[in-house]
């Protein structure tokens, strides 16, 4: 599979069809996977793909990485779940489908965090998204690499995130409040969640708008709550549940819970799943006259 990937990347670079291949490679010590940006055909051997490739590389397609954009037309190695983000980026005009070459890789799951990997990909070190993955075969791609997966996701989503959401839903208001307060209180406003998120591509984040300062920038519980809730709102109907924000959070705030909660809301209320079709507008900027309004008096 890796050979196939390298061959294709080489071909793309040689033909000049793309100027850079954004992919996965090993770090110098060969212990960890890190993003690599290949511009020379002879360097395509650096490309790898394995169960450690958890990173969502779609972030390098955004305006946050203008230096990469400047190199020229990119090819990007992407798992199905990463492609969902690319689809959202296309929907939101951040890139054009024809401006990128998607090297879709079939995937049989990745680790939740690389350091958990001890030579074997056990279910318990895989994130919830992998257990429920419906895109192990890339759904939007120019080239698909790897053997076809015949994995079918369970009808009812399973995994820690979903269990925890159910658990929280069943809690009392004050228990929920305490749960989140405890987590959000830890927030140090480092914005790693934002930095890692390919859909947090704003030229200026709302928290950096200081006239008026809607969200307090200090790591005060009050501002922490506002930040985390408003960020979740900004991702409502867009978040693909890639999990990068939670993976990157240095204080381990379970952001997957908030995001998945809204993914479920959007799915139940508006029948929408993000990252599937680039021609469908995200649900929060459109409406249906028949939307449920039983909560409105």
């Amino acid at each position: 599979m890796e050979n196939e990937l390298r061959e294709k990347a080489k071909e793309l670079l040689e033909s000049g069809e793309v100027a850079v291949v954004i992919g996965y490679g090993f770090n110098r010590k060969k212990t960890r996977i890190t993003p690599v940006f290949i511009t020379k055909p002879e360097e395509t051997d650096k490309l790898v793909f394995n169960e450690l490739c958890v990173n969502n590389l779609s972030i390098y397609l955004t305006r946050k990485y203008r230096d990469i954009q400047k190199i020229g037309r990119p090819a990007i190695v992407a798992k199905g779940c990463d492609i969902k983000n690319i689809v959202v980026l296309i929907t939101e005009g951040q890139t054009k489908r024809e401006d990128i070459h998607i090297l879709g890789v079939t995937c049989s799951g990745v680790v939740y965090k690389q350091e958990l990997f001890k030579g074997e990909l056990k279910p318990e070190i895989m994130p919830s998204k992998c257990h429920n993955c419906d895109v192990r075969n890339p759904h939007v791609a120019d080239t698909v690499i790897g053997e076809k997966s015949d994995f079918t996701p369970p009808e009812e989503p399973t995994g820690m995130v979903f269990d925890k959401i159910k658990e929280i839903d069943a809690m009392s208001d004050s228990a929920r409040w305490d749960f989140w307060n405890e987590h959000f209180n830890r927030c140090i406003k480092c914005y790693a969640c934002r930095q890692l998120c390919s859909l947090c591509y704003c030229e200026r984040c709302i928290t950096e708008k200081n006239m008026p300062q809607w969200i307090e920038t200090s790591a005060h519980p009050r501002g922490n709550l506002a930040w985390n809730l408003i960020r979740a709102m900004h991702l409502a109907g867009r978040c693909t549940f890639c999990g990068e924000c939670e993976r990157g959070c240095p204080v381990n705030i379970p952001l997957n819970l908030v995001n998945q909660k809204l993914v479920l809301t959007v799915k139940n209320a508006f029948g929408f799943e993000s990252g599937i079709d680039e021609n469908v507008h995200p649900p929060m900027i459109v409406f249906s006259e028949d939307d449920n309004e039983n909560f409105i008096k």
Partner: protein
Amino acid sequence: MPRIGVFVCQCGNNIEATVDTQKVADETKKLPGVVHTESYKFMCSSPGQDSFKKAIKDNKLDGVVVSACSPHMHEKTFRRAAEAAGLNQFQCEITNVREQCSWVHHDETRKIGTDKTMDLTRMTIQRLKKNRDLTKITIPVTKRALVIGGGIAGIQAALDIADGGQEVVIVEKEPSIGGNMARLSETFPTMDCSQCILTPKMVEAELHDKISLYTYSEVEKVDGYIGNFSVTIKKKAKFVDESTCTGCGECWEKCPFKADSEFELGLSKRKVIYTPFPQAVPNIPVIDKTRCPKILKDKCGLCAKVCGPQSIDFTQEDQLVTEEFGAIVVATGYELMPNKDFGEYGYGKITDVISGMQFERLASASGPTGGAIRRPSDNTEPKNVVFIQCAGSRDEKRGVSYCSKICCMYTAKHTMLYRHKVHDGQAYVFYMDIRSGGKRYEEFVRGAIEHDGAMYLRGRVSRVYEKDGKVIIQGADTLSGSQVEIEADMVVLATALVSRPGADTVAQTLGIGYDKYKFYNEYHPKLKPVETVTAGIFLAGTCVGPMDIPESVSQGSATASKVLALFSSDKMAREPITAEVNKQTCNACWDCVTSCPYVAIEKEEIKDRKGNVVNMLAHVNDGLCQGCGVCVCACRSKAIDLNGYTDEQVYAAIATF
């Protein structure tokens, strides 16, 4: 430091009774930035406004708060006064302390009212501090009006606008203007012949040098905004060259093929090349391309052979033209409810059950029977005719909930026309209520009953069926409390007036609202009856709801006055409550473009000095933006803000809370 003035109105005793306005004035004086406060008996009075202006000048105020009645009442008044005193009018803000405080909290100790007034005033002061000077937006105006629909309302609007010296285009989808009124026989309550009063207007419209008629045409697309609409019109192929056709009639005389006449509602035939009726304007025929054998299979072509000026052109195609207009009058009219659903009235099954409009054609001198009342099945003169009112109207379950308004009157007219033409005939009318409000209307109905002997039966008809060449009507007469059965020769249904099929599509094309019956929504049903929420688009006639000819004509004239007012200057000013994009922070995600209800946000190309497109960013079109603020919420980076309701203003108000 800002220099703010606060003016607390006592409104006689309306505010003063529950609010200690002097205390509010004294307390607010202590707030930072407030340099002048006063309490006054009637701020909106002339002396009140004078002192307001004087205070602005004397204290060199750069912002004013008036704590008084609702801004819906006097915001304009005070803003105008502020402007007169040299202040930008958007530096004047109103606190609503009458409708939303003093009138709703009846506390005699005045504590509640005073406290709340203080709070509200403080919020307004903080908001005001974030106000920016705004200037009214000026938009150039294309002095050319489009009238959609060439019925009486549209014709009247066009004539009045044209008489006011401005150019008008009437777009009519039928081959002739005239609309439903052209079908009518005589009109209530004066009984003058509809065609006699309508035809001169039609001709006048045709001959007016400021009016262009686009018949057999439909509006396809509307872009732009008030003063600057760009409208694409489809001119359907007539297969007749309008510039050379003389309307001699040779072609339709000779055409050997016939079809049901739409104008005559199926009561007679027309040719395949035809004008809908003899007085058609323009008097130029069209070829029905769905039936013409020449067009369908290249056979016949007789019309082309007999045409003197060689005007027939079988190769013509539909044409799309795009033209600029400053205002649009929508006068698309009505239809009668299709009656196939009225099982109990046997409509569609029984030939001699006809609609009121079909009766108009029977009674019309130019109609299929030359004005003689003949029933459709066997062309005999009906001696007993039953008129059933409210067929579909006021029937929420299976018809429409509203009253169609004109049926009581036209049914009375029908009974009269019938009696005038069939002297020994008897008319029966089943009615629910007789609604004859209007000048000389009630007298008219009385005339039908007392002079022309129509038998009015208050009650509903339960069943209509055929028996031995008669139409049997079973119904209730609730006044005598008995059931009645009438053997009639013909039944006339006063079917409900409904909007035209496709009225919703037209509304969507124009961007105007409509109700559940697809009648168009007025801006305000009482005070802005001919305006729509979309500036520059006006409504006339029955596309708004059932109305009679005088009302439709009045509305036509009313829209004309609105259009002429709009065209009275080369530029128009409008409130600057519009969204604005910060180009530095726009992500070009186009969420604003998608969510905008007005298509007011465009993708603007940003070019470098060489003219290469380097970027695309959102741009708000001031002419189209109505200032709802949906885009502001859609924008995650808050690169859009709404002037007049900026984030800073709202934030300041919340933060004061």
